[in-house]
């Protein structure tokens, strides 16, 4: 059993090197090489054709939209787009791959030699170099029957659903990521997060981690220092949440440091990530079985994207998340730290929509990062999961601006909206929360307060405005907070002047 080295100690004494492979399922309507529809959650084996099943005589034909999406991803990653490329067969046996080979790209990827800037939590930027992005197809899904909790070990037999077989994938491979030092876990997470946001902005995938739309394999190695040759790496497969990516990298750094400290050598192998206890365990050791005998796919012809097509796609690329953040930062005039908090809280889209709904950027930030952030924290949900829309915030702010609500009343209305009582106007009506703007009831309450506190009334009449707060407080209480304090103050002065 390997002793884990404390993470901080490990990164003080070793230089960690990272490499990440991200698979993204493209959101095309149909599969990569056949017209079977692909949608999440369809009953098993209802989205299959002879091509998906690899039946004899079936002929794959490439999905044009999938190629376009792959080129979009390549361009967004600042890659060169191949003038000419091919598919290859990657041969191996596994029940979820019915043809006994995966159609993939080998030494001729559609996109190569790129980079992407990744923003870290403190606002600094880290550049990740991209080796390649290539097209391939997804495999089916195995369901293990018997054994413990659907795990493969001890399973009696397995069931296979081929709905996912042939779903278009793009695999993005980084070059070795050097120089991240103790921040490797954060860089790993931020990189995958950056890609996820990019896929969504590009419209090439829904990129939902929890559905496996985006999957990451994380390579970690250690070396003595930045001038030493790269150490032996391990590849931790299918780490599928941002938090797990961070944890898996940390764990591997600690584990490998333990192996090296004990005078051992790191074994080059794939490892499995265990979400439950935050560890990795060895999978297969790379062996002869990994001789995939790649060769060009004879059933598909080469892909030769014309430069006109590539330029047309480049021109149609939407604004990417990093550029959008910079633009909004300028437009909204937030301080750097404010902007960072907004981004980290996942409030960017919400605030943008709120601003579109007519709220000033400052007020929009106050709502989402104040009251609503607190509520989200209490309820342990993401901001966007709160049952309130930017349009409702817009309506609420209008009520405040029109003087119908004070800030305090607005918070009560917000509570009502969050409790599912309807739109702000409905909550105001149902709870009777509008500001009492008619002076009549206010003057009544003021007279009552002055009468109830004769000492204070005398002081105020004597020109000492100090204790006026007590009167205002009493009026607010009497009107259940529905008075505008400034107006009450004016009216008190007026009353006192009248004698």
């Amino acid at each position, binding site marked *: 059993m390997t002793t884990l080295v404390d993470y901080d100690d490990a990164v003080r004494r070793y230089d960690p090197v990272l490499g990440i492979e991200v698979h993204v399922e493209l959101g*095309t*309507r*149909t599969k990569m090489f*056949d*017209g*079977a*529809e692909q949608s999440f959650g369809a*009953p*098993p*084996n*209802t*989205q*299959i*054709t*002879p091509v998906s*099943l690899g039946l004899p005589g079936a002929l794959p*034909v*490439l*999905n*044009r*939209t*999938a*190629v376009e999406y792959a080129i979009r991803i390549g361009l967004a990653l600042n890659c060169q787009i191949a003038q*000419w490329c*091919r598919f290859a067969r990657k*041969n191996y*046996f*596994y*029940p*979820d791959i019915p043809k006994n080979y995966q159609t993939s790209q080998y030494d001729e990827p559609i996109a190569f030699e790129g980079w992407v800037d990744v923003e870290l939590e403190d606002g600094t930027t880290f550049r990740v170099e991209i080796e390649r992005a290539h097209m391939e197809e997804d495999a089916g899904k*195995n*369901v*293990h*029957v018997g054994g413990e909790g659907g*795990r*493969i*070990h001890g*399973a*009696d*037999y*397995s*069931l*296979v*659903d*081929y709905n996912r077989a042939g779903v278009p994938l793009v695999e993005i491979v980084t070059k070795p990521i050097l120089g991240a030092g103790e921040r490797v876990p954060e860089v790993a997470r931020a990189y995958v997060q950056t890609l996820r946001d990019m896929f969504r902005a590009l419209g090439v995938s829904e990129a939902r981690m929890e559905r496996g739309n985006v999957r990451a394999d994380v390579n970690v190695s250690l070396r003595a220092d930045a001038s030493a040759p790269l150490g032996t790496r391990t590849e931790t497969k299918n780490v599928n949440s941002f938090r797990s990516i961070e944890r898996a990298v940390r764990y591997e750094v600690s584990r490998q440091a333990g192996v090296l400290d004990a005078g051992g050598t790191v074994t080059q192998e794939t490892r*499995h990530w265990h979400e439950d206890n935050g560890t990795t365990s060895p*999978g*297969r050791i790379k062996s*002869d*079985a990994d*001789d995939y*005998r790649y060769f*060009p796919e*004879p059933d*598909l*012809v*080469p*892909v*030769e*994207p014309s430069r006109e097509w590539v330029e047309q796609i480049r021109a149609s690329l939407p604004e990417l998340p990093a550029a959008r953040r910079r633009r909004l930062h300028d437009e909204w005039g937030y301080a750097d730290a404010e902007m960072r908090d907004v981004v980290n809280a996942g409030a960017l889209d919400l605030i943008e929509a709120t601003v579109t709904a007519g709220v000033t950027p400052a007020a929009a930030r106050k709502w989402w990062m104040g009251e609503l952030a607190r509520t989200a924290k209490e309820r342990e949900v993401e901001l966007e999961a709160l049952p309130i829309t930017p349009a409702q915030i817009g309506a609420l702010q209008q009520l405040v601006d029109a003087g119908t609500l004070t800030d305090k009343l607005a918070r009560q209305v917000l509570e009502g909206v969050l409790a599912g009582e309807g739109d702000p106007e409905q909550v105001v009506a149902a709870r009777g929360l509008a500001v009492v703007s008619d002076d009549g009831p206010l003057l009544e309450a003021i007279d009552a307060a002055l009468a109830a506190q004769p000492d204070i009334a005398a002081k105020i009449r004597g020109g000492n405005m100090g204790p006026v707060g007590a009167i205002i407080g009493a009026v607010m209480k009497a009107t259940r907070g529905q008075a505008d304090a400034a107006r009450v103050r004016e009216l008190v002065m007026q009353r006192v002047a009248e004698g």
Partner: protein
Amino acid sequence: MSTPWRDEVARVAALARIDLVPEELDRLAGDLDVIVHAVAEVSRIATPDVPATSHPLPLSNVFRDDVPVTPLDRDEALAAAPEAEAGMFVVPQILGEDA
């Protein structure tokens, strides 16, 4: 016939999960030897001005529109399987890799 290809044929056969008896190994190794020599002959004749052929058909960019077709009927697809359960194909216990 013994050729340098016997081990290579045995290795590829193992990767392809094909059991070959020694006589088959010998025969295929001999066949492969002939093929390798034939290809070497082509390489000798082909000069640098002869472009490499990547595909027998002079075609590229054969695409399909992203439009769904009618899928295979599930029962029909499963009918060809030795065993089916819950709308899925039954396969024997998978050993080794945890998927």
